[in-house]
């Protein structure tokens, strides 16, 4: 049974890391939404609004990982 522990820890860390990626994606999406709502409107050129959120690194080697969200809007 002791042999299970490292595997389970690794899988749990992986799940946690995936959850962190999704969470960062949600935050980035919300950031994009707020910025887009301020400027959207009119029939002018398309402007791409982007936002990047840092992902909390759980697994080694993933430090500095960022999730980027973007949306194209028509600016006045």
């Amino acid at each position, binding site marked *: *049974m002791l*042999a*299970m522990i490292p*595997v*389970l820890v690794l*899988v*749990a860390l*992986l*799940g946690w890391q*995936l*959850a962190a*990626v*999704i969470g960062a*994606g*949600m935050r980035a*999406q*919300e950031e*994009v*939404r707020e910025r*887009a*709502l*301020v400027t*959207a*409107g*009119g*029939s002018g050129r*398309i402007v*791409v609004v982007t936002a990047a959120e840092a992902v909390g690194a759980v697994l080694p080697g993933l430090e500095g990982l960022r999730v980027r969200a973007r*949306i*194209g*809007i*028509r600016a*006045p």
Partner: protein
Amino acid sequence: MSHRPRRQRGQALPLVLVVAALVLAGSLALFALGRAQLAVTRAQVAADVAAISAARELRARIGEAAGEPVATSGAWRARLAAVAVAAAAPAGARVEALSFPDDGWPPMSVQVIVSAPGPRGLRARAVARAGLVASAVLADDGAGWASGGGYAGPLVLRDGKPMCPSVAASFDLMDAAARADGIDLVVVSGFRSDAEQAVLFRRHPDPRWVARPGHSRHRDATELDLNMVAGGGAHAWLARNGEGFGFVQRYSWEPWHWGYVPGCGSRGAQRAPGGPTVAALPGWVPSPLRGTIAVAASANGIAPVLLAALLRSESGFDPRAVSPAGAQGIAQLMPATARGLGLRDPFDPGQAIPAAARLLGGHVRAFGSVPLALAAYNAGPGAVRRYGGIPPYPETQAYVARILALAGAAASIGGGPGGDGVRLIRVAGRFV
């Protein structure tokens, strides 16, 4: 002794693999759910952007919409749908439907249903509603009490110059409209007491330019001298638009002198000379009611077009209208309010229109602001005082915005998060 450890190892390995596979499968399932949720969020963002873009287009053209008949609502829906489609397209989303969810004309809100691509070929759907809002706060701009000849009543300041609240309220609407056209109206002089006029006359004892004490219209608190220096552009704008807000140029040789025809209302000493401006009423006001509206408005210090806009918004000029809440008649007065105004029959326009003008005029004098007075008519003066401005009820904010648009004062519509008079009202069932 050496056999048991081998058996234990042999049993543990499959178990470890099964548990690990289960945890991994759970993680992947959560990840898939997260992706689906992200797709829904993306669709919601696209819906929000489409709705707010359509509402901004509506805001930009609300004055134009107010002047058109209800029959053109299909054309307006198509116009706003085109804007919403263009707004949603860059996000890869498609507008499936656009509607005007509130009753009445012109529309005050827009609802869109948007779909966007999700995982595995599915489409995520989202609903968003955005609309126009009006915002105004109670201001402490009192300047004391006028007495000693001419107008007797409260005074408020605009550009530091005193005038009666009814004049200030209408001037605010006119000032906002002028600013929207790039014109800055500056009040150089307002109410002048007889004593102040005497000082002025002593300095310039020429009756052609300075009236004798007791003879200046400035004592009525209805007169404003606007942009006396280099005011050519402002005076030309006033000549085109002033009457719509109740202001007329008093003397042909004084392009800066503008008087408010409806006067200061019942608390003012007297109504400034000048007949009720029936001609200034828009074409959508029914002929049989035009005279009654003009007389009632002018007797209470409000512009006739404002009273007409209120009646149109309240009942569509239907004297038999009854709301689900029990408001009655053309002015949609609640029975208790009608009794308080001494109204015997709220279904009689001849009684209800003057009563509505009295009520609205009283609110204008109390608050010195048309948007606040309209909010008080809709939600009660207590709510306006409690919130220190227009109450944060979407219904009341849309009510004020609609009447301002109908009254030709769309430029006064403002507020919301960006201050441009537009906000998201409801997003997929949750309020923001």
